[in-house]
């Protein structure tokens, strides 16, 4: 009789465990396979794949789309990269607005929305992160995959004890072997992440990119925030962009030098291993702060968090925060404005190699109308102009 009870108990507990497995498994599977639609704006003249530049990423999850906006008149080539860190959504939504709205009058714009595409299919393991987030639009809601700082361990495994960066041989944290922004310039026979970086380097070299911009977000407890990190080739450009943005009074934008001894990061290696000027933009994202309260979609999108406000009262932050938080529109607006300003300043200094982009909203417009205003309805668009990201 007692034995029977034990068996029944084991079965009940196992069924409960099995249900947990099923529900969590479905959630993880749906997240990894969530299809995001991109409606190509009239400015997009061609969509390529990353493997067009390096065969080694063909057939892998990181063979992302490359959106090319060829200008009506020739000029310089600017490459804007999103989702180097897919847990930083403003770094992905800002370039999304360029692809769906931007038109290049002069010069050429290359845009990537999922640089570490593998990292867009997973959230931090054991972190209880939301798998997705939705942006309200005039035609309904658009859902996006929330991602992680690192590539999905299902796509790249194992992690070493210590990650030795190639080619500098600098020792980095083991997990950063899956961090796209620690694997530059990559190598053709390396890990998936290194191959992905190598493919982007090939793109930069083959397309003769003049300026490369890597879009990020940072926690408020991290000193590199609300700033442009610039390779020495881009010091002058970044300094003027940061000065003009700050002087215009819309928002503060700092400028920092890319350290020469810090390897694997795009602002260092892209500049060192190609002719391009490499810049990295950081916006504030309270969701990334370790002292945050609830890890929810709401916190991700509003950037409101009383615990981080408290940390600020104790002087622990490198960026201000109040009860208004850091809404996603503000963070995306910072990025669109900063990219547009980079084009403007560059064009003033290089009139023979201009970059002129129209139809992309700046800081004030994004905040006034919301991001959703600039996202197009994929179900009412010409199906030939809709791409799965």
């Amino acid at each position, binding site marked *: 009789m007692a034995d029977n009870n034990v068996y029944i108990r084991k079965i009940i507990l196992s069924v409960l465990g099995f249900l947990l*497995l099923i529900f969590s*498994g479905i959630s993880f599977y749906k997240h990894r396979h969530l299809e995001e639609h991109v409606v190509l704006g009239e400015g997009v003249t061609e969509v390529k794949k990353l493997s067009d530049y390096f065969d080694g990423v063909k057939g892998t999850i990181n063979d992302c789309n490359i959106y090319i906006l060829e200008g009506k008149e020739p000029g310089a080539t600017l490459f804007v990269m999103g989702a180097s860190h897919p847990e930083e959504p403003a770094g992905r939504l800002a370039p999304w607005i360029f692809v769906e709205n931007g038109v290049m009058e002069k010069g050429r714009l290359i845009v990537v929305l999922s640089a570490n595409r593998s990292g867009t299919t997973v959230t931090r393991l054991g972190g209880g992160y939301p798998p997705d987030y939705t942006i309200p639009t005039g035609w309904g809601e658009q859902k996006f995959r929330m991602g992680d700082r690192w590539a999905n361990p299902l796509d790249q495994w194992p992690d070493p004890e210590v990650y030795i960066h190639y080619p500098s041989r600098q020792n980095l944290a083991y997990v950063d072997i899956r961090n796209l922004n620690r694997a530059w310039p990559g190598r053709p026979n390396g890990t998936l992440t290194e191959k992905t970086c190598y493919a982007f380097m090939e793109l930069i070299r083959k397309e003769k990119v003049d300026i490369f911009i890597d879009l990020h977000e940072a926690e408020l407890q991290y000193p590199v925030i609300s700033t442009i990190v610039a390779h020495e080739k881009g010091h002058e450009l970044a300094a003027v962009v940061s000065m003009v943005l700050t002087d215009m009074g819309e928002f503060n934008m700092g400028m920092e030098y890319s350290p020469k001894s810090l390897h694997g990061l795009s602002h260092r290696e892209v500049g060192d291993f190609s002719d391009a000027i490499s810049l990295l933009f950081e916006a504030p994202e309270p969701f990334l702060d370790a002292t945050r309260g609830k890890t929810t979609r709401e916190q991700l999108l509003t950037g409101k968090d009383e615990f981080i406000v408290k940390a600020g009262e104790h002087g622990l932050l490198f960026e201000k925060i109040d009860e208004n938080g850091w809404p996603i529109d503000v963070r995306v607006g910072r990025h669109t404005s900063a990219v547009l300003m980079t084009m403007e300043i560059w064009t003033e200094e290089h009139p023979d190699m201009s970059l002129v982009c129209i139809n992309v909203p700046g800081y004030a417009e994004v905040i006034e109308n919301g991001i959703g205003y600039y996202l197009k309805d994929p179900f009412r668009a010409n199906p030939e102009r809709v791409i799965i990201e």
Partner: protein
Amino acid sequence: MNILMSIITVIYYLLVAYTAVILIYNLIKTKTWEKEALYIIVLLPFLLRLFRLK
């Protein structure tokens, strides 16, 4: 290096499967409900990785 990583990955998945089997075996053998619950909770991430869900 890629070949080495592939070999380690295969060994890793075999270890995950082996550990999952051991956990299930212990789950069947144990007599206390606390341990049963614990084995099930510990088993979940192993199965999620084995089935390549997370």
